[in-house]
């Protein structure tokens, strides 16, 4: 590897690499994100490598197998895209590989059973760019995720990577960089949504005063169902590094940290590898591109405490202390790591920086709404057809997100609510689906943008149980330092558990509201201050469900086990014995070809029978 001692050398290298990394060079890209790996994509790309050799594809065309980062369409993994045509195959198995090579790659024909069919229209769609899931997105941060080999810094450079860092070092002053970020309107993507530019400016001012400071990339992503930060680091780690280097230059900082969860082994591996490559090219180090600017990044591994995503707890954890938050002020911009001014930004915020510098603040500010600029990445999970990561401009409606991109609700069910912002967020009922998603409108409705977690609930979801789930999460993850969060969340959870078990009492709703108010207003950190939100929003929009549980001992969605009974409709039962044989608690009795019966005392309400019955003979009351 050459040491890039001047910007000109980087330009030369980019020109030299352009040929070998043409975007349209033929290759089979296989998604190597964690999701697709779980579906077995590793075996798929090995099979492709073997099969390309066996069928002597080389003799006809030069064809590579490229393992990329997460494409985002995790529902359909393992994903394979054949370039340059962009043929898109979903759920590819090893057995499909020889046929793909002979038919599609060599024969130029589509294989019908592997072609994606749209769950809403039933239409078959052959090319990646036409799939509604991708077509309706606006991918700025994730744009190269399905395209780059994350282990190849050269490919990133060939696509213009590190050009923004070069621009900053050669043409811009630190103040100009901060002015640019401010003008872009970028707001912190980690949850609080504070202006990134103003945060940088504060930190820069304090670094000037004290002569030392740090920047941190907060990669302690922990919301249930959210994994966009992981995908960015797995799929395009250099963009995060480049963003941090630009920020370091702007704030006058020479050391950065990435605080990343140890539960993200692939992201850690790719990031480590990327940092080493950047160092080898002199894009990190003592004299970046010969500019005299020094900056390096170290990785700190978190050990699985959700609270360490809170910035003061994160600082404590990096310093080797117990991962507990401390009261602010002083804010980290004044006194952070080892008492020095520290700027902490989320992975998505850092990854947005090179794009803003490259395209300009005005261009970036043209995306989104009045008070929320740029794009936001959501991870759509729950009762949705197209589970995955989507990047959309701010201001898009939930309806577009859920139906046009997410493909709607499976099995023709109706949507009941969408939980935005993870366990700190709130749920919005179906009637608010047309509200444009931006910071202000979500706050008004009781939800938050948060880190982009989006959990969909359909008509079969019990909202009390839903709130109980999130409260269980925050209660487990409370660090336990302050009283309202440690004991208050436990008190709320116990109350919700009682309500779900059928032991709700009059006054429980008032008690929940009273607790929620105190926990929100008096907890030490944002974990506690936002923990009651799922309960508060479900109480605001679905109070009738709570009342049905408490007053009528009835779970309208038929979910809460303490409030439902399973029974067999004798007229429909054919006496096939399937439910009887599979009952997990031996609660079903009966003889062949005679109607069976369920003993409610023994029944554990696991639902196995209802799933197995072919005659719809089992009902839940």
């Amino acid at each position, binding site marked *: 590897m050459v040491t890039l001692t001047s910007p000109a050398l980087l330009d030369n290298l980019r020109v030299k690499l352009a040929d070998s990394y043409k975007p349209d060079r033929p290759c089979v890209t296989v998604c190597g994100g964690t999701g697709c790996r779980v579906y077995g994509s590793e075996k798929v790309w090995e099979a492709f490598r073997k099969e390309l050799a066996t069928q002597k594809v080389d003799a006809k065309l030069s064809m590579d197998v490229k393992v990329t980062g997460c494409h985002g369409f995790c529902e359909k993994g393992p994903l394979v895209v054949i370039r340059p045509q962009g043929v898109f195959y979903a759920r590819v198995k090893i057995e499909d590989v020889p046929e793909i090579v002979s038919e599609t790659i060599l024969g130029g024909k589509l294989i019908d059973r592997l072609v994606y069919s749209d769950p809403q229209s039933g239409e078959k769609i052959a090319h990646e760019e036409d799939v509604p899931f991708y077509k309706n997105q606006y991918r700025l941060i994730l744009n190269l995720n399905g395209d780059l080999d994350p282990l190849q810094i050269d490919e990133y450079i060939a696509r213009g990577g590190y050009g923004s860092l070069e621009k900053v070092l050669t043409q811009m002053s630190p103040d100009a960089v901060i002015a640019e970020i401010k003008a872009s309107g970028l707001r912190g993507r980690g949850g609080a949504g504070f202006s990134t530019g103003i945060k940088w400016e504060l930190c820069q001012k304090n670094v000037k005063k004290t002569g030392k400071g740090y920047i941190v990339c907060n990669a302690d992503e922990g919301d249930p169902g959210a994994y966009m930060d992981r995908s960015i680091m797995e799929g395009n780690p250099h963009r995060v590094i480049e963003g941090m280097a630009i920020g370091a230059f702007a704030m006058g900082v020479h050391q950065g940290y990435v605080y990343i969860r140890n539960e993200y082994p692939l992201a850690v591996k790719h990031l480590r590898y990327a940092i080493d490559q950047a160092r080898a090219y002199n894009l990190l180090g003592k004299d970046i591109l010969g500019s005299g600017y020094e900056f390096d990044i170290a990785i700190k591994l978190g050990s699985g405490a959700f609270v360490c995503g809170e910035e003061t707890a994160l600082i404590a954890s990096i310093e080797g202390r117990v991962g507990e938050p401390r009261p602010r002020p002083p804010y980290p911009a004044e006194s952070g790591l080892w008492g020095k001014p520290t700027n902490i930004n989320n992975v998505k915020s850092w990854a947005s920086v090179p794009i803003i510098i490259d395209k300009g603040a005005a261009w970036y500010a043209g995306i989104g709404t009045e008070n929320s600029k740029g794009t936001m990445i959501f991870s759509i999970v729950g009762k949705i057809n197209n589970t995955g990561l989507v990047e959309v401009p701010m201001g898009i409606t939930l309806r577009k997100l859920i139906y046009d991109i997410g493909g709607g609700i499976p099995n023709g069910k109706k949507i009941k609510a969408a939980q935005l912002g993870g366990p700190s967020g709130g749920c919005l009922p179906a009637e608010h689906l047309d509200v444009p998603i931006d910071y202000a409108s979500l706050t008004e409705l009781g939800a938050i943008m948060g880190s982009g977690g989006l959990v969909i609930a359909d008509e079969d979801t019990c909202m009390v149980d839903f709130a109980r789930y999130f409260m269980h999460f925050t209660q487990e993850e*409370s*660090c336990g*330092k302050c009283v309202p969060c*440690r004991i208050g969340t436990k*008190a709320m959870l*116990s109350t919700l558990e009682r309500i779900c078990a059928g032991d709700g009492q009059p006054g429980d709703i008032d008690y929940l509201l*009273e607790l929620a108010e105190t926990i929100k207003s008096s907890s*030490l950190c944002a974990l506690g201050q936002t923990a009651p939100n799922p309960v508060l929003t479900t109480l605001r929009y679905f109070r009738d469900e709570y009342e049905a549980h408490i007053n009528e001992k009835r779970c309208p969605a038929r979910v809460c086990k303490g409030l439902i009974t399973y029974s067999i409709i004798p007229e429909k039962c054919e006496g096939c014995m399937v439910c009887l044989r599979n009952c997990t608690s031996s609660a079903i009795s009966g003889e062949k070809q005679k109607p069976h019966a369920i003993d409610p005392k023994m029944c554990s309400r696991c639902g196995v029978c209802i799933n197995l019955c072919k005659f719809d003979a089992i009902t839940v009351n």
Partner: protein
Amino acid sequence: MIHLTIDDRPIEVPEGRSLLEACRENGIAIPTLCYHPALEPYGACRLCVVELSQAGRKPRLVASCVYPCEEGAVVSTNSEMVQRSRRITAELILAGSYDTPEVLALGKELGVTEIRFKLPEENACVLCGLCVRTCSEIVGVSAISVIQRGISKKVSTPFQVKSSRCIGCGTCVLICPTGAFKFESVTGFQYVSPSQSSYRLGYYRLGGELDLHPTYEQDITALLANPKEGE
């Protein structure tokens, strides 16, 4: 000097004072449990919350032990919002310490009339962290720390075995406001009690004035000078 208004009274304090210090210096009572003037404020018990109004922001609760006095701040130490929050917080502390006399007394003072939620096990430890901070900040030993998290959090030694670093000074026992600290779980030393139940309660009493035992400092100094080795 910083000028602010507390409970409708104009107050002047030197820069760097916390709201709690400003209140106590001016005879305004604030209940606390995890605060001690000799230690860094911790902000954990949330009993010292006061209502802070600042221009352009909605009135909000802040923990007075850690919140600095700011020019022009308007503070209310006894508003309805403050009282409600303290009452609920005290009720929550009682959820785990419902048989502990000091905590029961505190709850009574703050208007708790019933305990609507109880944890399965009574524990006199309220996790105020005074013992841990004393051991680290005053004694300089750090033989104990908090371990685990959330509802399982507790004070313990590394790996939950008796500490070889403990010098047996007993400051942790002395400073514990509820008598929860189990000296024998930490160390092989034997604790010689200077009959100090009257040390307790002083830290959170609503009287405003700190109510320390007169011999408190001498006792700690004496203990630090002569750690007694147990048989």
